[in-house]
């Protein structure tokens, strides 16, 4: 187990810079998720930590050792690949034992460790099969087993669940979480799926175009996104972002967007310059339709017209027109509404986030 | 009954003569396919021959089918598949003697050419010994176009002077000077790849046995494992001790080069070496390079000949016969041989067209005892020759004269030469 530190890590391919000075401190036993759209550099960072890519600049420290020039096998990290990368000509047992065999562990110890890992992952009955004779989920477990047996300092996961079907994915996600609780190994997990990020991570690192956008706990990045990109990348459906202005109305700081005006809570954004243009970010679940009277202050209640209503089992998605602004609202319960219906909505304005329209960064 | 037989015989003879005469008289048309392995150095000689034929028979389209490959190994295989497939060429090249007789005459695939020989008067212009070797008691089977001599020893006179020796007359002479040469680091006798070992063997055997017993060997009257037969291998073994040990990776030209360069003193090779020495190496016959009959074979002419025969069932019979007439004619043979570097089989050829070596060879051919070559297909059939290669290997490896002679006798029996 070990801490992992990235100091201004840079990666170039020729003239193309794909990682621009990433700084990150990953604590011992932490489960950290790197998330971002494809091409954001998350896999590159992971592979640099693994030692599969050279580091163009900066340094990576695992434990207290700078590993820039340390070969992968001497970093004591284990990796699970998207396509599992099982050795097709070896049985499950041999696959799991390979790393230990390379480390020249005595045979009986290898045997013991493999059997242990197999028991943990419920792979016992399959030990003598070859990967081709296993289902996707079983292969996934073997890949994890191969990582576990070596008791590495750091686990690296490169989109390990994306080849599984939705149901299995949820199940494996849970098991991963359990494994982490059991082994408490520092884990770096790469995914493009924000649900995996939200559910698994102690902290999430959001990347875009080779820049770290934000590092924080799932709630932090959800509630206080550092910029418009994070706001829209995390959360499904994404955050509503509308253009507006800050004005004082009757002495109270108020957001105005077209015909809509919303008074900001007293403890937020009070020192903002008057007349400043802003981007207003409101989470879909921050727009309430039910029990509005009880839950939302009166000045945050507005009249809305329904454009579209979708029922997703336990929740409903509404596209609303509120004073000529388009909003998506995610509402608990089944809302049987029709286009053109009028409803009263309430904004949880204490959760509002404002962004600078020039920089798209969040305004403090 | 006798009368009838005589009449039939006469009629048959008449018929044959008739055919040959019409062949002469008619203006020939159609095609003529000649099958040979003369594609390389010998190509121009064959072309000259074809030109003579075309001049006489402008209506015939000559198809010159050649299959390359040293001494015709590949050509013979192609020919055999064609014959087996019932598609014989109109006339094909074949080593005169048993190579033709053992393979094609015994299989009853050839026409008897005796009437042609008689009609063209060849019985008197070809040496009697030669006609005996290219025929059997049932007929004459091919028209020889050239004569080569096998038993010739080559050397460079200036080098011999340097070494302080003379060309040996007998193998005893050779074995006397050989150790001295060897001590100086000179290979006494240059040898090349395996067929040249067979070639050397026949010269040694002829010297050891003499012409009479040599013939007796092939008629089955003398056994290969008789004391005389064993003595041949013993002498051959002694001679081999004075040859180069990288022989089997050399071509005969490379062995001849050794003599030219002074790395070796002598080389026993057929007289095609004369052409190589004078044309390729630019040495003058007699002064630049010298020759003798191989030791112990003076007065004996071991010949080999290329010849053309007439297969049964050819498509263009008349054209083929006309071709054979051209081959045997003085004009044809004197067009071909100077270019090929051989001498004519005819005793009346125009020697002014030939070079110095050929003149001396022609003189020897006219007066010497003529015997056939083994290595080049005159004395033994192909089965024996093939097996003899293995026997030779056996000897080269074991150097055991007694055992080798036994093996030679066995293959002679197997191939119908000895009883």
């Amino acid at each position, binding site marked *: 187990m070990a801490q992992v530190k990235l100091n201004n890590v840079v990666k170039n391919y020729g003239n193309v810079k794909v990682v621009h000075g990433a700084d990150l401190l990953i604590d011992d036993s932490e489960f950290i998720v790197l998330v971002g759209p494809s091409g954001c550099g998350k896999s590159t960072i992971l592979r640099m930590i693994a030692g599969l890519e050279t580091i163009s600049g900066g340094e990576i420290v695992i434990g207290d050792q700078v590993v820039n020039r340390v070969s992968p*096998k001497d970093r004591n990290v284990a990796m699970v*690949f*998207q*396509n599992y990368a099982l050795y097709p*000509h070896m049985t499950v047992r041999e696959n799991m034992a390979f790393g230990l065999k*390379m480390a020249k562990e005595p045979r009986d110890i290898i045997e013991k460790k493999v059997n242990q890992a197999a028991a943990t992952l419920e792979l016992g009955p399959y030990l003598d099969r070859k990967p081709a004779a296993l289902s996707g989920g079983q292969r996934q477990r073997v890949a994890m087993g191969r990582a576990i047996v070596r008791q590495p300092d750091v686990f690296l996961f490169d989109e390990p669940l994306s080849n599984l079907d939705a149901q299995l994915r949820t199940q494996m996600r849970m098991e991963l979480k359990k494994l982490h609780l059991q082994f408490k190994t520092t884990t770096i997990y790469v995914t493009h799926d924000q649900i995996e990020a939200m559910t698994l991570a102690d902290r999430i690192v959001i990347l875009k175009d080779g820049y770290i956008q934000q590092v924080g706990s799932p709630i932090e990045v959800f509630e206080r996104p550092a910029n418009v990109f994070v706001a829209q990348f995390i959360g499904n459906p994404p955050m509503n972002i509308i253009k507006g202005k800050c004005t004082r109305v009757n002495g109270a700081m108020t957001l105005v967007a077209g015909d809509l005006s919303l008074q900001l809570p007293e403890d937020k954004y009070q020192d903002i310059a008057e007349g400043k243009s802003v981007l207003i970010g409101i989470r879909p679940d921050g727009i309430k339709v039910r029990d509005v009277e009880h839950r939302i202050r009166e000045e945050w209640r507005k009249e809305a017209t329904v454009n579209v209503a979708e029922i997703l089992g336990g929740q409903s998605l509404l596209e609303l027109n509120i004073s000529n602004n388009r909003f998506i609202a995610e509402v608990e319960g089944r809302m049987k509404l029709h286009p053109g219906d009028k409803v009263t909505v309430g904004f949880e304005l204490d959760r509002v986030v404002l962004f600078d329209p020039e920089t798209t960064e969040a305004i403090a | 009954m006798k009368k009838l037989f005589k009449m039939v015989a006469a009629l048959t003879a008449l018929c044959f003569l008739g055919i040959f005469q019409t062949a002469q008289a008619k203006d020939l048309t159609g095609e003529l396919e000649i099958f040979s392995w003369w594609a390389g150095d010998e190509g121009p000689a064959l072309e000259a021959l074809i030109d003579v034929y075309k001049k006489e028979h402008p209506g015939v389209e000559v198809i010159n089918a050649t299959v390359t490959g040293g001494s015709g190994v590949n050509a013979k295989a192609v020919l055999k598949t064609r014959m087996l497939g019932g598609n014989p060429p109109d006339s094909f090249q074949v080593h005169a003697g048993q190579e033709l007789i053992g393979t*094609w005459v015994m299989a009853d*695939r050839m026409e008897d050419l005796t009437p042609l020989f008689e009609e063209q008067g060849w019985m008197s212009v070809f040496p009697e010994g030669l006609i005996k070797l290219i025929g059997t008691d049932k007929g004459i089977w091919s028209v020889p176009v050239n004569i080569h001599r096998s038993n010739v020893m080559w050397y460079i006179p200036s080098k011999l002077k340097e070494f302080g020796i003379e060309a040996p007359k007998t193998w005893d002479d050779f074995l006397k000077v050989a150790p001295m040469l060897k001590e100086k680091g000179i290979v006494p006798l240059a040898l090349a790849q395996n067929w040249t070992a067979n070639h050397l063997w026949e010269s040694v055997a002829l010297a050891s046995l003499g012409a009479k017993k040599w013939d007796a060997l092939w008629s089955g009257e003398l056994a290969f494992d008789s004391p005389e037969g064993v003595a041949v291998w013993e002498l051959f073994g002694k001679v081999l001790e004075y040859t180069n040990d990288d022989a089997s990776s050399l071509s005969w030209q490379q062995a001849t080069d050794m003599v030219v360069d002074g790395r070796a003193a002598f080389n026993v090779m057929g007289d095609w070496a004369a052409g190589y020495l004078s044309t390729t190496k630019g040495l003058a016959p007699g002064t630049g390079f010298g020759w003798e009959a191989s030791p112990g074979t003076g007065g004996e002419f071991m010949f080999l000949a290329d010849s053309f025969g007439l297969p049964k069932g050819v498509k263009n019979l008349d054209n083929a016969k006309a071709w054979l007439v051209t081959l045997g004619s003085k004009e044809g043979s004197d067009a071909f041989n100077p270019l090929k570097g051989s001498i004519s089989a005819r005793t009346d050829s125009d020697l002014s067209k030939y070079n110095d070596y050929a003149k001396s060879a022609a003189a020897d051919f006219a007066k010497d005892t003529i015997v056939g070559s083994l290595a080049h297909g005159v004395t033994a059939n192909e089965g024996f*020759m093939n097996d003899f290669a293995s026997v030779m290997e056996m000897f080269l490896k074991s150097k055991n004269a007694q055992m080798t002679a036994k093996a030679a006798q066995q293959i002679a029996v197997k191939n119908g030469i000895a009883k």
Partner: protein
Amino acid sequence: MREVSRDRIKAFLTLLPSIVLIGIFVYGFIGNTIWISLTDWGGVAALAEHPVKHFIGIQNYVDLFTGFLEGRFRQDMVNAVFYSVSLLAGAVGLGMFIAILLDRKPKGEDFLRTVFLYPMSLSFIVSGTIWRWMLAPQGGVNILPTYAGFKPLTFKWLSAKTTVLAFNWQNLLQIGLYLVAVITIIIGFIVYRNSRSKSVKWLAIGALSGLTAWIGGDMLPKALILEEIHGFNLATLGIIMATIWQYSGYTMALYLAGFNGISQDLHDAAMLDGASTSAYYTHIAIPMLKPITISAVIILSHISLKMFDLIFSMTGPDNAETGHPALNMYLTTFRANEFARGASIAIVLFLLAATFIIPYLITQYKQRRTR
């Protein structure tokens, strides 16, 4: 249903011409050759228009393996075995080695790949002639050291008379038993890790045949009356070199394609599992390419059994040191006119090739069934 049967008929009709042609020209002629090999077709009247053939059973085969005059065939067989084994080891090993070097993606990999593959495109006659010059006693390879100031080599690549690993053909049975013993004991030790009981069986067979050969010794029946020594003629080294030179590019291409087909992730996984580069190749890449190795072995082994032109152009028809059964077959048939004997050599070669190919076909067939 009707659609299916119509498709089948169409497929059958499409295949019919090739079935008929292959039936006649391949299998028909194999059958004919077997028949000829059981006759006495040969000798003086062999080329008659209707040659006389008598059925003589397997006499030709008996002669080949025990006849006094067929020692040459036996040496050729021994040559062929050593030749095949060396070619397999050399071409597969060298090809694999070059493929591994190129798989490391050096600069100019494309160019080098073409360079190594190029010899494949030469005809054997051409490469044989080139190598004959290169291996001439006073030239080519032998004078290479002189460029570095050393003495020239004197080895006679194509005409050395030295024989190593010599054995007496008389003791063929004994040697065969020893071979069986060695092989089964090795198998026994390999199997030991997986299954004890199977291993014991193999070891028992090995020990038994080894003992029989050892104790039986002189009492075992002799294959020949006379002693006859055969072995690995060093003169074949030149031919082996030339063939390896010509074919290692081919195996390289096979392996390179295989290596390129292995996903980068497997390589990465092995690296993380602590494998060095050489361990990656020995434990992962090469075992994964077992099918390629098997096809290379099969292709090369029957190429080596059929090898003719290269040997013919390098050492000519009558060089027993470097002889090969295919050459012998040609000369026996078309030079000596012993058609039946030649056919029997052909069948021996055919059976040898079959021993390589048939097990392969069977495993392929089984694999397809289980899939």
